[in-house]
């Protein structure tokens, strides 16, 4: 079976040739969870693309729909209760959501791989790490046990796990948190995917280990030219690595910009508040700003701009009309009625 070519239907023509075409285009993605407590709109109209070798950070508070977006892209949503109700996910032009599960499966690991937050629970406790890395080669490439093990050792070396040859038969619980996350990275890396989605890969780790793991991801990405989607709720973590940042709030994308632009001058009040909440060296001793209020209940998202109950600039229009994700000069986007005023700082706090 040829693993390199993936069949596509006529209306699903891949873009060939153009090396700068996006590897991933997510368009108007909607995901809802139908539960006993009602329908939670976890993702509403999310749109973005990812260029080859690019790093996109998806930023947002807990519950803003970051993981659900990632799961929908991977096709690993819990269904039921989760359903993609609208939108498309195109990998090199192919709408992978439209594919039957059997074909879709071959994109996982092979084209798009994922790293999860908690490496301890995300690795199977009863198999050795070598087995779990090697499984990729055995299942996707039909490799023998021995070859798979050799590959596993190579990968463990590549993610800088010391004494890989000796440790290949060890079990996940015998490794430290940072090393376990490196094993998850090794699994994700194994088939040279075009995209890696890392869902809060460092949140569960110590600060020093966090930096090492982030550095490893950045290095690996530079080597292999893969696209990286980095999900986090910590603006500080992504500052150096992300090319562009998408900010999510209550299931919507509310701002999108190149990292530097977003840091230096946010075009959305929510982003502005997030930035103000980062501890900064030059503000040592001053009180840290936190965003007042709580994120909305996704079964009952406020009408108009979902952020309006917490927004210091909210006007009456904000609770009536949902601001669209408008194009803002400088290749960026913002979903705020007053993005111009936010950008030039002319808004008054009520």
């Amino acid at each position, binding site marked *: 079976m040829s693993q390199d070519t993936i069949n596509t239907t006529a209306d699903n023509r891949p873009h060939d040739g153009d090396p700068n075409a996006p590897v991933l285009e997510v368009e108007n993605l909607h995901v809802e969870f139908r539960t006993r407590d009602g329908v939670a709109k976890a993702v509403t109209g999310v749109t973005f693309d990812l260029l080859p070798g690019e790093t996109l950070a998806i930023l947002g508070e807990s519950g803003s729909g970051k993981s659900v977006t990632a799961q929908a892209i991977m096709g*690993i949503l819990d269904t039921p209760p989760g359903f993609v109700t609208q939108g498309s996910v195109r990998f090199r032009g192919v709408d992978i959501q439209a594919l039957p599960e059997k074909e879709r*499966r071959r*994109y*996982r690991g092979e084209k798009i791989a*994922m790293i999860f937050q908690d490496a301890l629970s*995300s690795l199977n*406790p009863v198999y050795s790490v070598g087995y779990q890395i090697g499984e990729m080669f055995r299942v996707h490439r039909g490799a023998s046990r021995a070859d798979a093990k050799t590959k596993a050792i190579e990968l463990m070396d590549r993610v800088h796990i010391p004494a890989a040859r000796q440790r290949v038969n060890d079990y996940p619980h015998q490794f430290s948190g940072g090393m376990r996350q490196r094993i998850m990275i090794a699994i994700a890396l194994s088939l040279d995917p075009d995209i890696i989605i890392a869902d809060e890969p460092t949140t569960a780790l110590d600060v020093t280990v966090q930096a090492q793991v982030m550095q490893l991801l950045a290095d690996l990405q530079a080597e292999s030219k893969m696209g990286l989607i980095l999900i986090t709720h910590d603006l500080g973590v992504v500052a150096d690595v992300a090319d562009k940042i998408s900010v999510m709030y209550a299931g919507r994308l509310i701002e999108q910009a190149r990292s530097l632009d977003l840091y230096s001058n946010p075009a959305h009040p929510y982003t502005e508040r997030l930035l103000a909440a980062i501890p900064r060296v030059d503000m040592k001793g001053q009180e840290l700003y936190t965003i007042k209020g709580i994120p909305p209940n996704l079964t009952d998202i406020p009408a108009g701009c979902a952020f309006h109950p917490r927004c210091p600039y909210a006007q009456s229009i904000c609770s009536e009309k949902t601001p669209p994700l408008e194009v803002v000069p400088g290749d960026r986007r913002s979903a705020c009625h007053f993005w111009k005023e936010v950008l030039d700082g002319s808004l008054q706090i009520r």
Partner: protein
Amino acid sequence: MGTYVLRRLLQMIPVFFGATFLIFYLVLGMPGDPLAVMCGERGCDPSTANALRAQFHIGEPLYVQYFEYMKGILTLDFGETFSRRPVLDVMGDAFPITIRLATLAFIIEIFIGVPLGLVAGLRRGKFFDSSILLGTLLIISIPIFVIGFLMQYFLGLKLGWFRPTVSGEAPWNELLLPAIVLGTVSLAYIMRLTRTSVVENIHADYVRTAVAKGLPHRRVVTVHLLRNSLIPVVTYLGADIGALMGGAIVTERIFNIKGVGGTLYQAINRGEAPTIVSIVVILVIVYLVFNLLVDLLYAVLDPRIRYA
């Protein structure tokens, strides 16, 4: 690992002696005069009675009797029945039959219980799952002898699919129906246990990882989900072997099987201490050995468990 096994084997020694002494104490404390049973209506003449007393240590203190008995066991001398047959022979007839019966029941439990439990867990809340839950609840709540008589009547007598009673040789095919009866209750527990365990694990992060790795559904279920879900099931199965061996009394009575249960039942009725104690001693050993095996298997199934 080696030291752990050794320590467990050493631990078995006091458990073994404790359990056997307890049985000895209880059996000898049973009402009735063993001599009266042995000599029957007419009674024995005094010299025979004395000889019997000496042979069976009747009337001597309990610890002496226990000591003499244990001394015999070490040389595989389990004593004699009241009808002067070596207990070893009696057990040699009974145990193979019960082992066949228990093995069949065990195989039925595993090969029906685990797959059905797995499917129920995968289809949680659906019709199949509800049927399994209801069916197993019924089985668990109906006494085993009722199930046994019903199956014997319908499957054996009415439909004629099976022989309603088992002949003296107790060949494998005749033991099938009794094995189903013997296994039903454990089968129901295993289905439920597997189902619960699958339901618990199905949303585990590592299962999600397996899906995200692009593994085929079948592999996700069998290699990742089922393997982890079986850990509690294996524990139950291990304890169940002992129960199957010793707990076949009712089933063996219904189907007239001359196995351990039947023999034990008769021995108890007669107050035949050597037979009772010997059978129980063997059952205790079986139980202890399987417990150890399960513990070792546990470590193989779950590497997080390390024996120090």
